[in-house]
């Protein structure tokens, strides 16, 4: 399973980096979204991949790693997702503002060579 998820992360990072390096703002936004998915998965995976072991305890129980998946990376991912969402929103609005003020959707606010 680790292999599948690693390759998945790799593909997301590759696509994300490719888009990140494109000149159009929208491409960059999509690229950052892909990268942020990849990073979220990566954070998530650092605790190990376990199926059917959601860290939801039976009431009154003191859990242990033998039964449950590592909850820490999950908590970290949640924070990362939220922050990623917020900043994506900001970037989007900013690129709209940039497009409005500069008249172009090039990341540099001017077409190349102009």
């Amino acid at each position: 399973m680790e292999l599948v998820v690693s390759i998945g992360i790799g593909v997301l990072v590759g696509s994300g980096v490719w888009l990140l390096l494109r000149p159009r703002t929208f491409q960059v936004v999509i690229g950052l979204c892909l990268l942020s998915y990849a990073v979220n998965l990566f954070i998530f995976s650092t605790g190990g991949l376990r199926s059917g072991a959601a860290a939801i305890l039976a009431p009154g129980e003191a859990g242990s790693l033998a039964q449950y998946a590592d909850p820490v990376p999950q908590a970290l991912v949640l924070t990362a997702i939220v922050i990623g969402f917020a900043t994506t929103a900001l970037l989007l609005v900013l690129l709209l503002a940039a497009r409005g003020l500069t008249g172009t959707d090039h990341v540099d606010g001017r077409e190349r060579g102009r």
Partner: protein
Amino acid sequence: MTGWMNHLVMAPIVVPMLAGSLMILAGDRWRGLAVALGLVSTLALVVLAVTMLAVADEPVVRIYRLGDWPTLFGIVLVLDRLSALMLVLAAVLGLSAFVFSLARWHRAGAHFHPLFQFQLMGLNGAFLTGDLFNLFVFFEVMLAASYGMALHGSGTARVRAGLHYIVINLLASLLFLIGVSAVYGIAGTLNIADLAMRMRDIAAGDRAVLEAGLAVLGIAFLVKAAMWPLGFWLPGTYSAASAPAAAILSILSKVGVYAILRVWLLLFGAEAGASAGFGGGWLLVGGLLTIAFGSVAVLATQNLSRLAGASVLVSSGTLLAAIGAGQVSVTGGALFYLASSVLAIGAFFLLIELVERGREVGADVLAVTREAFGAGAEEDEADAHEEVGVAIPGTVAILGSAFMACAVLLAGLPPLSGFLAKFAILAPLLGHGDAGLPAANWALLAALVLSGLATVIALLRAGIEVFWASPAAKAPRVGLVEIAPVGLLLALCVALTVGAGPVMGYMQATAQSLHAPQDYLGAVTGAPARAPRGGE
């Protein structure tokens, strides 16, 4: 440390937190309330920070266990000399920028006040936290607010630069996350001190992965610290920002430096086993290259704001190189330099706006957008153009003196602290000996001297252009609330110069505890466990 004193460590985060939240409720409609709250908060932060500086200047490292959880389990705040120092700098800069903004900038866009408070909160949190992931969170708070600061007032230049700033920082944040989670995956902890304790015992096969993660983390820090070639975003962003925003932003790049100081010295100190000294050479070389590039950038511009931005690069490079040298006393000097350059650059950014106001380039300062919709101006823009301040007598002379002081500070010339700061780095670096000097020391010596020269040349050119060459420039209208913060910051530089001895003593003590962090590690990892509590 009992009772209310106990919560002192937390206060620099809570105060702006509350103030900012209340300001949101007040909205832009009751701006007077927001101003009052802001004043109370920024003043309180200065008082708190100074108190904490006093408290921190002893071997005891104070920790604050959030949620009353044991230290290695929950998140801890740690107050040591370094964090206290950074708090003071942030608070002073915050107060200055805030007061400055009251003249007119705070009305140049929506929600300036809460954003400003959150900026301070993010900074303070980043300086206090002892947890790597929490550091990420506060970096984000700080960055999110800094986006607002950088974009405050809007306008083409800001938006264009802001876009770069945000994209680059988003990428850097992702790198940060990759690094932090790799640390958790390999070392199983997020507490920096705990991680430092575990560094020695990392299995040989895992060490490569951990170090790779930390290297990626380091890249994230270095992007914020604007090391060459990762910091090209900085001059553009800072120069496009409004004056108070740029002033407060100027400490942001130092947060990257702070993070490196804190994390790098803790994790890769002598205790780190096989990892000791990891990447130090890169810091040194990178720092030198940053100084070189910053100096070139200083020379290559005639725009004062951009020049100031380039000076930030120089100062970042100086700090990185000095830290990379890996000697206790050089680090002490670097800390002195840090304090001096933060104050100086802050003052300079504020000053630039006042200086340029007299030159009629201030016409586009507010960069108010044309209403394309034809729906008429938004209400907060109505008063944006009003003249601020009165032509106080001798304004030009005051501005000129302040400019001179800033120039002297940035170039590292006497008589102000900039000179002492460079000396404080170089003297221990060169040390005393019968043999020659290593090439790296020569390089740093040359870099500091030549960057000073570059700054002299550039500022001379700019200053003469602004103050001497313009035909009978009409005195800019400058409010007292605008010049006073500049004065405050410069006065602190004077204080640094006069009180260099005690200040340097503090810095050396800080450097010593950074390089031999037993107090820190002991306080964090050996703190008393949580008393039983809770329900049933």
